[in-house]
């Protein structure tokens, strides 16, 4: 009995000890682990609206897009997924987003400066001229993420290497082509160290290569199955001035985008910036020729894009500037220039006034590139289509805009932002319309944005916008009034009105003078945000209720919820 009792005691002690050790390690593991996530949902109740061509409302009254991300991290390990739900997808979204599914899942770990990721990932090389995957599901339904493997390795100070392999997301499926790529970046100062490390001159060099494989199943053409593209780049900075340049080359890549020609593609990006306190200047140029690059040569729309050719224009957020004539890069060929100046007139100076005045001037101009057609037989697998020099500016203008923005604080309570823009928009090229019926649009746009702070918590903001043109749909006006009660509430009403439209119906009435009225209200608490809206809304970037997001076209009652934890 005594012996038994002793044995029992020993076992208990051993158990408690081992359990404590176990507890310690479980504790260590579990307590370092964290789960975080975010959620977003847009729901719409549709109304028939023949005026804006929304007479074809879906059979269902209510449509909904939603998603939630969950990410678990524990030390150097991380894994997560995004659950997506399209019940059914909102109007204006690609119909292939249907039902529920896991749109994104990954696991990764980091060890000795090397990160391995398997599953889905977003990555870009340099400026993205030959490779960039990203996601904008919320408003655009765009996601070209990779599914495969990736290694990011910091070999030593100043030397980074990335390797990727995988296929791209195509809604709830994967694209046909397999991508393989490497990118190296050398930060010269960090790499060589010593006195260079603190030098006022800094240099970064980079190079990338990417190749896609897609089987040739064409009976008509003899298509290249492996298409390679490479690029080289540098970033040079000396005190307050910087130069950033990248050049990219792609071998022949016959595709639906370029009409199955066998010409190579090229692109370059060059930018210089100078800034000092109160003054900033950026000058940039970009050219691209035959640089549409997709992991399926037959793909169209926004599907399976491998690279990113940024539009060299100002990214607008005011309704009339952002939604009516937005420029879109022409991957088959364009030459673009842009300059932007930011200047602050000092406080208490003659022009600056008591609080100082901010001035921003942006100019951008975009043309086609000069080319000469090379006639060859229709089905010839050697046809080049045309010859060109990427640095040669053609004589067809695609876009041209100068805009000036003045930011002025009048008093502690009243502030204003005044914007004027003059733009030329080649709707035939950018929107693929018939040039005989759709001439270039010459538009003047003015925006007055005033904020009046009633007291510490209450504020009213108004936007008065006008767009004046003799082409397309003629004049537009937008009025927005937003009332906010910090930190939780806002209400806003907006009307975008095509008051100058001259089109008439058979009875001679101006039937296209449409109002896009939209009323919304929202509640924010911490990282949770709720917004309801009613009315019509055009698709585009919207900055209402204290956030900016790309929204789909709306018509009827909308409910948006975003949250993160």
């Amino acid at each position, binding site marked *: 009995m005594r012996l038994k009792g002793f044995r029992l005691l020993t076992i208990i002690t051993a158990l408690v000890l081992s359990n404590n050790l176990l507890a310690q390690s479980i504790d260590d593991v579990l307590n370092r682990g964290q789960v975080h996530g975010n959620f977003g949902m847009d729901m719409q109740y549709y109304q028939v609206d023949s005026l804006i061509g929304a007479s074809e409302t879906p059979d269902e009254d209510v449509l909904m897009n939603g998603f939630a991300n969950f990410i678990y991290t524990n030390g150097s390990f991380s894994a997560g997924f995004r659950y997506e739900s399209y019940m059914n997808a909102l109007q204006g979204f690609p119909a292939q987003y249907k039902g529920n599914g896991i749109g994104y899942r990954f696991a990764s770990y*980091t060890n000795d400066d090397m990160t391995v990721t398997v599953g889905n990932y977003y990555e870009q090389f340099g400026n993205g001229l030959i490779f960039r995957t990203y996601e904008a599901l919320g408003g655009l339904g765009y996601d070209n993420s990779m599914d495969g493997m990736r290694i990011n390795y910091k070999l030593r100070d100043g030397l980074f290497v990335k390797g990727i392999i995988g296929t791209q997301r195509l809604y709830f499926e994967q694209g046909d082509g397999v991508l393989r790529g490497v990118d190296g970046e050398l930060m010269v100062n960090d790499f060589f160290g010593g006195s260079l490390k603190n030098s006022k001159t800094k240099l970064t060099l980079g190079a990338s290569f990417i190749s896609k494989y897609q089987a040739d199943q064409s009976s008509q053409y003899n298509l290249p199955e492996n298409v390679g593209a490479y690029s080289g780049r540098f970033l040079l900075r000396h005190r307050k001035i910087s130069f950033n340049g990248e050049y990219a080359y792609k071998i022949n890549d016959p595709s639906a985008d370029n009409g199955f020609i066998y010409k190579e593609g090229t692109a370059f990006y060059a930018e210089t910036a100078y*800034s000092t306190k109160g003054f900033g200047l950026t000058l940039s140029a970009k050219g691209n020729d035959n640089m549409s690059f997709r992991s399926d040569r037959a793909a169209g729309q926004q599907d399976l894009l491998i690279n990113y050719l940024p539009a060299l224009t100002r990214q607008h957020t005011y309704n009339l500037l952002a939604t009516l004539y937005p420029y879109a890069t022409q991957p088959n060929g364009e030459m673009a220039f842009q300059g932007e100046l930011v200047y602050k007139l000092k406080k208490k100076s003659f022009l600056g006034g008591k609080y100082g005045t901010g001035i921003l001037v942006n100019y951008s101009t975009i043309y086609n590139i000069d080319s000469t057609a090379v006639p060859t037989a229709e089905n010839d697998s050697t046809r080049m289509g045309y010859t060109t020099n990427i640095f040669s500016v053609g004589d067809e203008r695609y876009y041209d805009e100068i805009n000036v923005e003045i930011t002025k604080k009048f008093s502690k309570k009243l502030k204003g932002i005044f914007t004027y823009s003059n733009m030329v928009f080649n709707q035939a090229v950018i929107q693929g319309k018939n040039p005989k019926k759709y001439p270039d649009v010459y538009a003047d746009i003015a925006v007055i944005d005033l904020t009046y702070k009633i007291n510490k918590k209450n504020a009213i903001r108004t936007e008065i916008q006008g767009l004046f043109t003799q082409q397309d749909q003629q004049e537009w006006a937008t009025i927005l009034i937003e009332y906010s009660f910090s930190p939780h509430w806002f209400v806003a009403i907006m009307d975008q009105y095509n008051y100058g439209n001259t089109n008439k119906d058979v009875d001679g009435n101006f039937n296209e003078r449409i109002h896009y009225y939209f009323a919304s209200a929202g509640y*924010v608490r*911490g990282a949770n945000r709720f917004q309801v809206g009613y009315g019509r809304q055009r698709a585009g970037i919207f900055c209402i209720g204290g956030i900016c997001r790309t929204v789909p076209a709306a018509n009827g009652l909308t409910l948006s919820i975003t949250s993160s934890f």
Partner: protein
Amino acid sequence: MKKLILLSILTTLSFTIFSQQEKRAMPSVNVTDMEGGTVNTSEFNNDGKPMIVNFWATWCSPCKRELNNIADVYDDWVEETGVKLIAISIDDARNAGKVAPYVNGKGWEYEVYIDSNQDLKRALNVNNVPHTFLLNGKGEIVWQHNSYQEGDEDTLYEAVKALAAGKELKH
């Protein structure tokens, strides 16, 4: 005997589950500084004082309103609490080159980084800009807020002052 084992395992587990979870710190993600260098976000620090991490973009008007409004009072904030504001721009290649000229042109005195591949934005589960995180002196995220309305900076600063005074924040 079995009961004993079960009991001890249960105590162990419940102990594990109910023990205090650590608060969230900045994830380890590389962002680009204004000179083109690479900085790991887990190395953000402010010598034991609070930090504000704010996501913005050059095309986001409420973001710019927020950061311009804070810029007017930032000197006072720093002097009174030692707080540091880190502004994370999510601009991509289209606008990344305009970030430094804009920041300097506006005379902002924040620490500014570019997260052009949105790795940090994803790691912190940010839906839309602007989105603000507040970190305590230990580098733990103790407060966050999405969107900006006039006056929100006062609420943020109340939280900063509470932190600087060593108080716990009610979320």
